[in-house]
């Protein structure tokens, strides 16, 4: 049996590896997407005070520490049965919206977007952010840097630091913002809305205006009919910071909504011996293996699933784009995974609009940003939408608020099964007996998982938008037949 090893970021980078086995005919027999790392947070959070969870679990991910900070803080609120004052919730959501704006911008311009702006078969040397700058114009590079700076500034004003924020505590925050900071954030928010609209226009022009791209998006290679999940507010609109999790079937039927405290009724995790990461699935449907359809509990949690699981967006411009999205793609739900890129931009616009809404709320500069907890701490669950999927933190504590159990279901982990399936399907469709594996072909396999913006240990991010791949082809005896490399 032949074997292809695709190592994102090379063999020993430690953050994700794909094994493709071929049968005697040279067709794909099976694929394995392995995650080679475990750090053990769920164990060593035990014994620590619950108010430290927003600080310790930050360190799961330096790319999205804001998400862990928020989920942990909300779980700690729940542990203490304390409802933070409204200004505290507004400030946390404002911090979070600033973070989303930066994160989604980075993904589109540096990671996922180059495939579309430049084309999946463009020369490797051009298929990166520099290529985008050359094609769209030099000023776009400056705008992307500006967008990152603005987002980080909002995070720092409210979270105290640019990386690993430190201000969320049970009952609210340790600080508020000044009127000067508020004005500055409002200004950045207006700029962000313009930038998001500009980005959506760019996507419209370059991607939707090109039939080949539209065909690629709508093609079968990148389609999986799985369940969709996402956090929604009381009106069933997408919300990143708060609400209940809506679960929608492959047919588009909402089979239920769960509150954070009910997550164990809905989500379970499957273990395989060949990887350190678990595979979450819908408990009510059950684990049926790496298959899609209504009878398989596999779900996905991404910008696209959030749109599928909601009834719309809570801000006017994003709502317009939401309606357009489903009218162009033929109604809800959308299963074509490359549409995640488009959905991400609709969320980008929502995050920008939300920054302005929150920054202009009369209570945002209030000093009432903390409520001292008075109840005995017990147990709590906090859920936010991380950019890469629904993030659940669950803690039990003793009566002093010291953690006795921690259970974390992290953003990208939700998508481990669907990503594995997407890789399998792309590889099976593209690698056939007798064909020569080419660089654009590898990129098409890579696109299958890049759409999810996977962040395994935050390490599969590669700034030039090009994840280096190396495919080693071995014969049945393990002899090296060929090595193909794809570098920036």
């Amino acid at each position: 049996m032949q074997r292809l090893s695709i190592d994102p970021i090379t063999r020993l980078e430690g953050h994700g590896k794909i094994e493709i086995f071929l049968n005697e005919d040279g067709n794909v027999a099976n694929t394995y997407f392995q995650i080679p790392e475990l750090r053990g947070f769920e164990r060593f959070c035990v014994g620590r005070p619950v108010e430290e969870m927003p600080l310790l679990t930050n360190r799961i991910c330096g790319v999205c520490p804001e998400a862990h900070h928020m989920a942990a803080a909300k779980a700690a609120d729940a542990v203490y049965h304390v409802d933070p004052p409204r200004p505290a919730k507004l400030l946390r959501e404002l911090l979070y919206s600033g973070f989303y704006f930066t994160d989604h911008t980075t993904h589109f311009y540096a990671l996922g977007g180059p495939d579309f702006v430049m084309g999946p078969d463009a020369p490797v040397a051009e298929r990166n952010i520099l290529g985008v700058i050359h094609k769209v114009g030099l000023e776009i590079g400056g705008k992307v840097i500006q967008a990152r700076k603005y987002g980080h500034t909002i995070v720092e004003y409210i979270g105290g630091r640019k990386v690993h924020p430190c201000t969320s505590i049970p009952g609210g925050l340790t600080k508020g913002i000044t009127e000067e900071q508020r004005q500055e954030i409002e200004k950045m928010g207006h700029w962000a809305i313009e930038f998001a609209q500009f980005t959506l226009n760019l996507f419209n022009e370059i991607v939707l205006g090109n039939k080949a791209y539209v065909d690629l998006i709508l093609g079968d290679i990148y389609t999986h009919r799985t369940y969709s999940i996402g956090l929604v507010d009381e009106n069933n609109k997408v919300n990143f910071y708060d609400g209940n999790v809506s679960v929608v079937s492959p047919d588009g039927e909402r089979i239920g909504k769960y509150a954070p405290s009910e997550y164990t009724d809905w989500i379970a995790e499957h273990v395989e011996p060949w990887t350190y990461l678990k595979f979450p699935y819908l408990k009510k449907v059950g684990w049926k293996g790496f298959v899609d359809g209504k009878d398989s509990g596999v779900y996905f949690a991404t910008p696209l699933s959030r749109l599928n699981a909601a009834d719309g967006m809570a801000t006017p411009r994003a709502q317009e784009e939401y309606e357009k999205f489903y009218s162009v793609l033929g109604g809800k739900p959308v299963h074509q995974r490359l549409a995640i890129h488009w959905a991400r931009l609709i969320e980008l616009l929502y995050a920008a609009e939300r920054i302005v809404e929150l920054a202009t709320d009369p209570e945002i500069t209030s000093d009432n940003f903390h409520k001292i907890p008075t109840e005995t701490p017990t147990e709590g669950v906090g859920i936010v939408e991380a950019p890469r999927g629904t993030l659940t933190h669950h803690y039990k504590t003793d009566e002093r608020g010291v953690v006795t159990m921690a259970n974390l279901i992290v953003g990208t982990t939700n998508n481990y099964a669907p990503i594995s399936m997407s890789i399998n399907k792309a590889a099976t469709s593209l690698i056939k007996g007798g064909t020569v594996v080419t660089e654009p072909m590898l990129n098409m396999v890579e696109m299958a998982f890049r759409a999810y913006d996977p962040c395994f240990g935050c390490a599969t991010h590669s700034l030039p938008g090009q994840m280096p791949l190396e495919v080693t082809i071995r014969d049945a005896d393990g002899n090296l037949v060929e090595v193909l490399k794809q570098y920036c």
Partner: protein
Amino acid sequence: MSTNGKPKFAMYWAASCGGCEIAVLNIHEKILDVDANFEVVFWPVAMDAKYKDVEAMEDGSILLTLFNGGIRNDENEEIAHLLRRKSKILVAFGSCANEGCIPGLANFSRPSDIFDAAYASITTDNPEGIRPQPSYAVPEGEIHIPKFYPVLRTLDQVVPVDYYMPGCPPESHQIAAVIDLVVQVLQGKATLPPPGSTIGAGGSTVCDDCPRTRNVKTIKKFVRIQDIVVDPNLCLLEQGVPCNGIATRSGCNALCPKAGAQCIGCYGPAEGVLDYGARLITAFGSVIDSKDPEEIERILDGIPDPAGQFYRFNLAASLLRAGKASWESN
């Protein structure tokens, strides 16, 4: 040697969160200085990672390597040895590589307990008790994942380290200053500090950068941050909040205390401190306003997690290095 005549630069992450990379990217235009003065040969987050090319390089041919992340598995260790061989100057970059950081708290636990927490959790459906295996025979052949070590180690517990740059993550202004220094050294305008030095940080404690008012520190009880209305101008420790600034190296500009949150110690031990926890215990002990053993006990009970409080970032580098459970399984 270098194809374009510029000295070579590398940056690598082992068991880490990626925050160090983000901190480097946050130096913005200074990144251009790196590009202008170095040939970047290996930096997974920013460019292709030609691992085999690194292997093929002459030993010592990379001038400067910033290594972040702890040594959690055999793969991390293998890369640490490789980059040590290839690098003239190896910098332990960030808290994980320096002192183990938060993931080092795993050293209080047996690996079997760490695995149980992950693979026998309340949401895990695992009736057969499956645990990940370094080598596993799937029907099509054998596949591998790195071997999980009993304890997490710091970089200098695995290979010799030339310089230490602390912080979780190192603050961007400190990174920019270090890059400036190295550029000046390359231009012959400055010299490198003595090997073994801590760079990109201050020589005193976080307290020295903290704008809060300090009086004579004496406390009758420890309080937890969520349980009080914090005075925005007074020293947090004087208010009873167990702030670690007093034992922690300066360099961050006291960001957390300025934001109303206690220092949690991410810049590691202050200059000359042999064991961070021991230093902090002494410091906390000296502010307790009592001579009565029973009252002192009561006051100390206000710290619900002494092990975490005193060794939150520093356990793997401490004199203890790990808890008994972890050593026994080694």
